[in-house]
């Protein structure tokens, strides 16, 4: 499956990233404030989403606008499987009986969500993966729009645009940390697997890869399904973090913020995906904090409302201007003096 030497060589990457995430969790525990705890949970969820996105986008080089659809699928699995049967009967009367009676713990819903999203990734993927380039991007977007349209209108099963409530809220930080760690390690393992290496080869040298017998649509499909599963798990946990789910949570807003984090971090490497989330989230939080006002001596200095978003946009543009391949620029975190995972970026020279 994967060569042991590659695994040994690159093992430092997920370990370092994992330690970084654990450090964030420990900071949250040390601060001890509930809102801050929630902030860190939110960051871990973004890590799951962006890492899920990276598995497909980073390895295949195809930008996907559709992955949040899988988060949406997962988010509703949480609603279907964890809400008390009585409440489900009121908000989603169209559910089949066996599902109506099901009530499983949150981690169970995350696992089921991953499977459900993976199934749909397989179905959509087997149609879409033969496309490449911008056509594939638009097709994935159309997929997102379709899922959104269906979930926004299927009154009896998804309660349409109405928020579904009654999802058990998990405010502890640890499940989210564990899920984020699982995604990072899964993404790493996929990246160094035969399939992951083949897909990256296909990304960099499509003709050569095809000549070597790599079935590109199939290689992409595998990545699509794995990343769909990660997104699905993240979607379910997202539902558990705020206790409600609506289709428009999982639409353009989340799509763009996760894509931005991926590109700003550097879509060529797993470290880029994780660091993109951590850096942009930290930036957003700092700006929000400034917007809320900072006490300097006797006076309170506060940025006017809206400056946060504008500043975020400007900073993103500046980062991309000076580091077009993202902050990590296709490199992975590794221990000093060890060879990094060979992740050459997508060929960039334009003709």
């Amino acid at each position, binding site marked *: 499956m994967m060569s042991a030497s590659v695994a040994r060589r690159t093992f430092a990457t997920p370990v370092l990233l994992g330690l970084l995430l654990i450090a964030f969790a420990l900071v949250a525990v040390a601060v001890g*404030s*509930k*809102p*801050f*705890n*929630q*902030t860190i949970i*939110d960051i871990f969820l973004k890590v799951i989403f962006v890492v899920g996105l990276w598995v497909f986008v980073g390895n295949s080089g195809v930008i996907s606008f559709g992955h949040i659809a899988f988060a949406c699928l997962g988010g509703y699995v949480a609603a279907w499987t964890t809400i008390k049967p009585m409440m489900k009967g*009121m908000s989603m009367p169209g559910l089949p009986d066996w599902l109506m009676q099901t009530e499983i713990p949150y981690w169970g819903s995350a696992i089921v969500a991953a499977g459900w999203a993976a199934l749909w990734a397989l179905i959509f993927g087997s149609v879409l993966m033969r496309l490449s380039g911008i056509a594939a991007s638009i097709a994935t977007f159309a997929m997102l729009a379709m899922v959104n349209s269906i979930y*926004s*209108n299927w009154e009896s099963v998804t309660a*349409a*645009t*109405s*928020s579904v*409530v009654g999802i058990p*809220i998990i*405010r502890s930080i640890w499940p989210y940390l564990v899920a984020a760690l699982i995604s990072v390690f899964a993404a790493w393992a996929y990246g160094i697997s035969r399939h992951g290496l083949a897909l990256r080869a296909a990304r960099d040298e499509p003709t050569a890869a095809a000549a070597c017998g790599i079935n590109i649509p199939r290689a992409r499909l595998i990545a699509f399904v794995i990343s769909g599963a990660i997104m699905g798990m993240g979607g379910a946990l*997202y539902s558990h*973090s*705020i*206790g*409600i789910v*609506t289709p*428009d*949570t999982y639409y353009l*807003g989340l799509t763009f913020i996760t894509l931005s984090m991926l590109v700003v971090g550097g879509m060529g490497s797993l470290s880029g995906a994780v660091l993109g989330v951590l850096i942009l989230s930290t930036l957003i939080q700092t700006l*929000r904090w400034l*917007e*809320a*006002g*900072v*006490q300097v001596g006797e006076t*309170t200095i*506060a940025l006017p*409302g*809206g400056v*946060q*978003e504008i500043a975020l946009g400007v900073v993103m543009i500046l980062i991309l201007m000076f580091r077009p391949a993202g902050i990590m620029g296709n490199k992975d975190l590794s221990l000093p003096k060890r060879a990094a995972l060979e992740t050459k970026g997508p060929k960039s020279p334009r003709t």
Partner: protein
Amino acid sequence: MKRLMTALAATTCLTAPALADDDKIIVGFATAETGFMQAYDKPAQDAAMIRIAEINASGGLLGKQIEVVNADTKTDRAEGAKAGLTVIDAGADMVVVSCDYDFGSPAALAAESAGLPSFFLCAESIKAGIQGVGPNSFSASVLAAVQGATMAEWSYTKKEARTFYRLLDTWTEYNKGICDGFDYMLPKLADATLVGEDTFLNEDASIAAQITRIKALPEEPDAIMLCTMMPGAVSAIKQIRAAGINSMILNGSGVDGSYWLSAVPDLSNFFVPVQGSIYGDDPNPDVTAFNAKYKEVTGGDPSTQYVYPGYVMIDVWAKAVERAGTTETTAVVAELEKMNAEPTLFGPRTFTSELHHQNQARYLIVETNAGKPGVVDEWTISEPIPVADLMK
């Protein structure tokens, strides 16, 4: 200005652990200060602040001053949960959440799990209360379904409308709520018929196809029940009139206000139910006085009737606290649930252990004639909409 400073001071020390402070009562606002919900939250919150200032000026609540802490939801659900936790951490005795159910519920759920009462500023979905949050959650406004039912019954009785067309914008639950109320009422009206129905989406650039369907009817309907909200409403109304359809247009309260009327010059035959009039012609002179007060405090007239629920909210909550003699949740909720047709500046309010919302309410009917809106009537639906029908 002072209010602003208090608010700022409160926000800045949020990271400090909550102090159990017995000298004051804290109301936490987890509402949108930025983003698109801000346009809805801010006016209602201003009205709430007016009521708080009045209470404080007359000696406070249970002899204590009411203080306010704010946290911004950024019009984002995940941020909403954080904002809720933030004001709870700051020691809020009651949590006020965003106007809309979708955006307010994460904070309301946080309050619920902390055992605190919460109020939606102006949510009009039945879920904004026991059904969607829990036993300690209330909404200060009236159910959307009541608006649809009111318009149907009123236009049937007072305008002799018999043929109705139902045009639903599926964008939000609020819109669907209006049409649900309309659907509930229509079969109860003898010989009123639904001659057609259609849906659209708020963001649709053009609803030409939907209008073509109305025009394909053999006869123009007496009334079109338009279940939509801003900003799509203006576009829909404009396109309906531009196509030469002159039927009565019945709406929910969401299109109240004169700020948009310039977009559809000389609009006529257009009806909106409101809880109080912003046009200076409310039958209750105290409402006009409130409008003046609002202008004095915020520098502008109320732009829609959605200012009013904020005032009602503090009013009923403060009464309940006063009667309970404590801010303790169970006692306050029990007092609130005892309210039956409790008079407020904007009509009577009733809460029961089954419903923390209004399933019947007195509405003023505002007619826009040649571009001029004004109160023409007042209507209360003949019987409350049963909770079972609302839950459908």
